[in-house]
């Protein structure tokens, strides 16, 4: 394979098996014949792959080619026969349901017997405030709370929330530091820490105003 010279277009066609040998220069034809013999000799030394090669390749793919995650995925998506006692399955489902119910979903108010939800508008007059939020039993007193927005009425902050019927305790938080009771709430009750929480009892028709 040490012959690196270039062939003419007729020589290349001869190598491809198309033209007759009479169209080639004898020297170029001799070189082309040497090259063809060398290729035939090399090809003769090659061993034709048998079916064992396919099996070996597939075995390597299974053993080494697949990543652990894809193996898990394959296991998960592949059908399996799993034997489970119905009682165990029912208990597992119950536990999952209890765990979900206790850690998620809307916060049921105190005394609420039904899951009916109505919209309740909270508002606070705080002309000097930069931001106002509300937190309470309906959001597990999470910080920073639910933001109120400025109303078209100067100094008035408002937000409308969907709340389940029942009693809710809450407070406004002004500028992130000052907890403020809602003077328009149904009542103020001891929060256990020496201060008060505002109380609203939301009925099926919402909350009545004056």
């Amino acid at each position, binding site marked *: 394979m040490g012959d690196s010279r270039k062939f003419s277009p007729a020589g290349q066609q001869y190598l491809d098996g198309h033209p007759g040998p009479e169209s080639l220069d004898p020297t170029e034809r001799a070189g082309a014949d040497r090259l063809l013999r060398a290729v035939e000799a090399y090809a003769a030394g090659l061993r034709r792959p048998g079916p064992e090669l396919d099996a070996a390749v597939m075995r390597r793919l299974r053993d080494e080619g697949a990543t652990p995650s894809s193996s898990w995925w394959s296991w998960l998506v592949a059908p399996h026969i799993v034997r489970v*006692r119905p009682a*165990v399955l029912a*208990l597992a489902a119950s*536990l999952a349901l209890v*765990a979900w119910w*206790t*850690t998620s979903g809307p916060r049921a108010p*105190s*005394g*609420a*017997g*039904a899951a009916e939800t*109505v*919209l*309740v*508008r*909270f*508002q*606070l*007059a*705080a*002309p000097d405030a930069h931001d106002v939020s509300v*937190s309470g039993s309906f959001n*597990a*007193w*999470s*910080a920073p709370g639910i933001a109120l927005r400025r*109303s*078209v*009425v100067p*100094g*008035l*902050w408002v937000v409308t929330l969907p709340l389940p*019927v*029942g*009693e809710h305790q809450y407070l406004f938080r002004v500028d992130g530091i*000052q907890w403020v009771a809602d*003077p*328009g709430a*149904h*009542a*103020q*009750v*001891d*929060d*256990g*820490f020496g*201060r008060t929480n505002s*109380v*609203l*009892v*939301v*009925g*099926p*028709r*919402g*909350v*009545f*105003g*004056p």
Partner: protein
Amino acid sequence: MTSMVLSALVATSFGLQQTDLRQRLVDRGAAPEFAQQVAQVVAGARTSGLPVEPLTDKAFEGLAKGYTAERILPVVQLLADRLRAGRTAAVSAGLTQPSGRIVAAAAEALGRGMERTEVVDVLRAAPGPDAASVGLTVAASLVAQGIASRDATRAVATAYREGRSAQELLELPSVTSSWFAEGVTLPEVVKRIHEGQALPFPPGRAAGRGVVPGLRPGTGPPIAPPGKTGTKPNRP
């Protein structure tokens, strides 16, 4: 084998709940030691069949308000004791397995000054478990509005015995609040309640359009909601 699986599932669920609560407390700024102490109180309450959500909520409330662990933990413990008292009251009313909502509502009612016998009266008058918890909540709210616990108890118990529904009773605090806002005196409010004037209810706003007027702290009378006139005093 099955019992082992069941035990493992229950233990895992319980452990996850405890871990989850501790983590939620830590996420809200609690020290790990404090979170562990609260989790122990909650675990004890759960073992006693008490609702734990009021306890976790109170801990969250204390953290949100910036109280120290030393201040929060006794409050949570006190609430746990009150829940036990609420459960005892519910059991004495004939409820062998009171729901968490009933126990929580009973505890709240006791915390607002209702007597155990009054809690029992409301529970016995209620037509069902849901109505029982609502009745206690409404009675406790009336007490918080300044109405004597015996009057609040009588109002709720009578309403139930007359066939009123829990949904109707839930509007009683709004009606009472409206009367106070109109300047009706406390004795007159009590009189109206006993005469049944609160039920049926006076015309109110459409469902879901309730308005809670607010007021900048420390300033004059509350402003009226946009488009409304008049004022609403905070408390009688």
